[in-house]
């Protein structure tokens, strides 16, 4: 019952937050200098008042801003995010097209980041101040600080161009056509289509961009895991366990890691939220048609319905992830459940 109340409270909070985000972004898009008409019509078309008037009427830009706002919010309450000024398609359909690409890549990246980040963090804590610890720390600092677009070019250059052991940009090789859209995840959709070769190809195309995007979050997770394990190791209950004769690694894995994982879970959640917002440069280099590219093109075109749509999507991502993380806290640490 408590959990249900918790979820209901979160749901109400989510709706209010989304309306707040939509309002804020709407106001911001109107405040910043820039006119969608100028950004989307050619120089010659801009010289024709009839074309300009037709364009403005089509997207409601000829209405007072307050009317535009209430219309937008009214539509939003009916789950209508409006029409993209740039593509003339429904924004919801556009997000439905590009979000699965980003989601598939983000999930892959966060799995890599979490698995290796926690593993390296634990090893680093166990081997504190050893040469292995130094190496792991160097890797994590590099992962956090390396510019992703440069790293993307680098891995593409070596693994695809020079060594020729990895596939190039895109979600699929040239010999495959996109699978029928069921989930939008090419790996899953290819399997549903009964084409394991295509699924394997789609999986291989995830690896390079996935590793590039994982580098930053993995570095954070490694560092957080290491420092939290070291903190937990200095607590009384660990000292007691040691006094009872438990060995070092067993102690870490069975008793310390659980407690140390709560902040790590927060980092993983934030990392996933960050990845789901789309990564413009990495998506561009790897030719990945995700949210980042869509957001970038929308900003260039002052396509405010799409900009607000992306902002709502990002806010929604964070809120859903935070809710899931909060629920997971309870599983990891029973004390949270009691509270």
């Amino acid at each position, binding site marked *: 019952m408590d959990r249900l109340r918790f979820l209901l409270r979160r749901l109400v909070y989510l709706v209010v937050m989304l309306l707040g985000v939509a309002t804020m972004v709407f106001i911001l898009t109107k405040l910043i*200098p820039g006119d969608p008409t100028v950004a989307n019509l050619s120089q010659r078309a801009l010289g024709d008042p009839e074309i300009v008037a037709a364009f403005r009427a089509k997207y409601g830009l000829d209405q007072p801003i307050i009317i535009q706002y209430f219309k937008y919010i009214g539509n939003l309450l009916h789950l209508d995010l409006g029409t993209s000024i740039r*593509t003339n398609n429904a924004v919801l359909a556009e997000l439905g097209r590009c979000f699965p690409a980003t989601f598939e890549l983000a999930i892959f990246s966060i799995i890599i980041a979490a698995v290796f980040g926690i593993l390296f963090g634990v090893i680093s804590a166990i081997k504190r101040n050893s040469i292995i610890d130094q190496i792991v720390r160097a890797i994590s600092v590099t992962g956090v600080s390396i510019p992703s677009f440069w790293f993307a070019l680098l891995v593409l250059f070596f693994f695809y161009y020079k060594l020729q052991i990895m596939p190039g940009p895109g979600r699929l090789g040239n010999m495959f*056509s996109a699978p029928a859209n069921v989930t939008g995840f090419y790996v899953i959709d290819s399997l549903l289509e009964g084409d394991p070769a295509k699924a394997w190809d789609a999986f291989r195309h995830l690896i390079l961009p996935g590793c590039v995007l994982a580098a930053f979050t993995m570095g954070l997770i490694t560092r957080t895991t290491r420092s939290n394990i070291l903190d937990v190791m200095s607590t009384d209950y660990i000292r007691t366990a040691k006094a009872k004769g438990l060995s070092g690694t067993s102690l870490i894995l069975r008793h310390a890691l659980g407690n140390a994982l709560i902040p790590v879970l927060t980092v993983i959640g934030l990392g996933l939220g960050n990845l789901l917002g789309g990564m413009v440069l990495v998506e561009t280099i790897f030719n990945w048609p995700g949210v980042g590219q869509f957001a970038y093109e929308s900003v*260039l075109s002052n396509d405010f319905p799409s900009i607000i749509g992306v902002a709502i999507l990002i806010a929604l991502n964070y809120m859903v992830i935070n809710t899931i993380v909060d629920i997971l806290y309870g599983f990891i640490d029973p004390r949270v459940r009691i509270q």
Partner: protein
Amino acid sequence: MKRKLTALALGLVLALGLAACGGGSSSSGGSASGGDAAPATEAASGSSTVVVAMGSGFATLDPGRVYEKYPPLIVNACYENLFKFYSNDGEPEPCLVNDDYTFSEDGLTLTMTLKDGITFASGNAMTSADVAYSINRCKNLKDNPSFLADTIESVETPDEKTVVIHLNQPDSAILSKLTYASFAVLDSAVVTENGGTDAADAAEKDTAEAFLNTTSAGSGPYIMTSYTQDEEIVLEKNPSYWGESSNIDKFIVKIQPDSNTQMMTLSQGDIDVAMNMTDDTMAELEGKENIIRIDAPTKTVGFVMMNMDEAIGGPVSNPDVQQAIRYALDYEGLKTICGNGSVTPYDVIQVGFMGSRGERPADYQNLDKAKECLAKAGYENGFDIDLKVCDLDMEGVALTDFAQKVKEDLAQVGINCNIVNETWAGGYGDEYRDGKLGLTVMYWGTDYNDPNVQLEFLPGGVVGLRAGWTAEMDPDLAAMYQRAMEATDNDDRGNILGNIQEAMYESGPFIFFAQASSHMAYNDRLVGVEVSDPYALDLTLIKLK
């Protein structure tokens, strides 16, 4: 236990690496065959598939609405026009119509007959009604390319084969305009069935864009079979094409905006044509077997604009100062910024257009003369001025790069420019169109492939007015606008355009400093790959060796 953990970590890394590099089908192109480019065909399904990589940044593939650089590439392959450019620097030639088209004596009526046996991919026969529908739809959609129909009064279809276009004023560029993607002839039955209309209220009622964004409804040699937005467009051979078919069965047009990515995918044989190369990425391909590189000028031209209105332009409104700036610029340096293949046009008409006077002499820069002109204007000690520039780029080169070079050049004669950056959509665009900019660096892409587009730079023209250059300031030059528009005879028009260039060579508020270059590279198994101003790349001319 510690060792096990370390081993687990190493094992995971190794497993991931092996999974990635391991067997299975070689993916995107699968050329693990050493450095040289293997044809993309080997990897792609089918024996004659060609993969082309092009840039992004377009919103629609609906012929009635297209105006950006890349959509004509697709439209030209899937649709056909009454006239077509079969070579980049050539003249429009009949495509769907017979050679015996005629202009009336007053130049206001163009009469054509459709060739026999033309059918759409749907199997429908093409009639004059389809032509009228396509032109009227483009005009009534009131979208970006609708201005092309401004001089078209009406389209008459006396019978199924005859098309009569009535103009509201003589328009010597009408044949060139009719080659543009927006006037591609649509299968009117199919388009109407899917929400299209050519009625006067098409701007509000036409809903065919979504349909035309995913498939084609034309008579061209290819059919658009799929478009995955921001990923790829697939064109397959039209089995019932009425003309001569190519030996290429399928084009996969990949949307790959990054030039480094294009360079790598071309080298690996994953693509056959890379359209968005740069000087740097072209250099990487030097010495690669099987790859041919092209550097060629486009008709997109960069220019310096100086406002003729003293209240706005200040010192640069003075003709002597304008000439001083003309002498002070380092044209060779500006061309270098554009990259290999760039040229400096003699003046307002680009190299490659009918009537062009060629290139401005390489040694035109003369700092002594520039200083003399400044002294004559009363600015022997130079002056300070704002040089506004926006965030746009000219074929991949940021306008700010040109502005920086202009600033350096002008500093040598005592003109100190303060570069002011503004965004195009955030205010610069409005100021530019409203003629509020004193001194700026800008570019001009041709709306359609005809020298008449340049007439807008004349006094009283659309761009001329942006520089405060009214027809009253130079009535003789302004009168040439109308004369060029009316000259349906190419020799006459060439002479008029030549006179315009001579008149503007050392006078007026515009200095055309360079034509942008286009860098392409392709696999040598192809022939017919050329930089194309009207179509970006004419897929219909490409063949396998």
